[in-house]
């Protein structure tokens, strides 16, 4: 099961209205290609912070379901987020980690996730639910149940390192367009927003 395979199984099951925060690298690209919605936010930088961004959304809008689409490299870069999320216990936050054991977008350099099971790390941190799937059949069976779970819930999806090169084109949306799009989708009034070329630094 590659990342693209896993997303093809997972994304159709994501309920409309769910905010999806995608980690940078291949996850955002493949996620955008699989199913792009206004509630989707794609990091193109700030590696490691998808989980923190998701936590911020989840705490600020407790009635909105939030799904973080993370990777092993991203998660390892910000392991503290597992502790912060587990301690905050947001019931509306779901966290999927696609684990290919490598930094795929920089050439497949290995991470340590083959020796440090990230699902066990999440369990030790105190997530309410932790699951692990390694096959398409297991993911297909678990996805609907997982997406309905009370958070914080963590699902490690073990995937194969795909062929070299990106699985999909770059994110087609300009970064600040994504910001405005997500805020609009989340019901945030845009009255305070001004044209992007304004210079306010004085």
């Amino acid at each position, binding site marked *: 099961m590659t990342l693209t395979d896993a997303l093809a199984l997972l994304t159709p099951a994501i309920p409309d209205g769910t905010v999806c925060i995608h980690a940078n690298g291949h996850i955002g690209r493949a996620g955008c290609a699989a199913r792009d919605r206004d509630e989707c936010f794609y990091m193109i930088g700030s590696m490691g*912070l998808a989980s923190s*961004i998701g936590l911020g959304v989840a705490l600020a809008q407790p009635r909105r379901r939030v799904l973080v689409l993370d990777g092993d490299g991203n998660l390892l870069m910000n392991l*503290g987020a597992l502790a912060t999320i587990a301690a905050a216990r947001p019931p509306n936050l779901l966290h999927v980690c696609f684990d290919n054991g490598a930094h795929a977008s920089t050439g497949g350099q290995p991470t340590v996730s083959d020796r440090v099971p990230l699902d066990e790390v999440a369990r030790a941190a105190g997530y309410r639910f932790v699951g692990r799937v390694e096959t398409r059949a297991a993911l297909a069976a678990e996805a609907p149940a997982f997406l309905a779970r009370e958070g914080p819930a963590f699902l490690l999806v073990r995937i194969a390192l795909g062929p070299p090169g990106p699985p999909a084109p770059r994110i087609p949306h300009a970064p600040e367009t994504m*910001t405005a799009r997500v805020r609009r989708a989340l019901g945030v009034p845009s009255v305070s927003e001004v044209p992007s070329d304004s210079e306010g*630094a004085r």
Partner: protein
Amino acid sequence: MSGSLPADHFVDRLLAAGFDFFVGVPCSLVKTLLVELERRGLYLGETREDAALGMAAGAYLAGRTPVVVMQNSGLGVSLNALGSLHLLYRIPALLLVTWRGYQGEDAPEHLVMGEVLPRLLEVFGVPFRAPPPEALEPAVDWAAACIRETRRPVALVVRPGIFE
């Protein structure tokens, strides 16, 4: 040493200016401020300053106007988040950055960042003020206006002796 600016007044001012999400990593220079934020149930502690910025970004996407409290040492940790998330995506936040190493008088680990702090904020295009105690509260309104106009992060630098 009791601070020269009552923390409860300052928090009132932040709330009145529209700030409504508070996250950060502590510093002794804002001890009384953090006590006051926690007393009101407003503050969330993070493990690292860039993770705090990530939470603040998420809160902004969901309609909040966030404040991120950090020591200036944490500004170094924050630079990639500022550059490739906040500034790139036009996601604002008020950074309350303490000034350890102010005027070269501090523990050695604070001296380098203490010296370069204003220049570092300038280089990153983060508008800031580092006011004396009596001018910190009024600067909150400046910060709020700056955020509304630019949708970029803005910083208030907290000198020693204000909230200790």
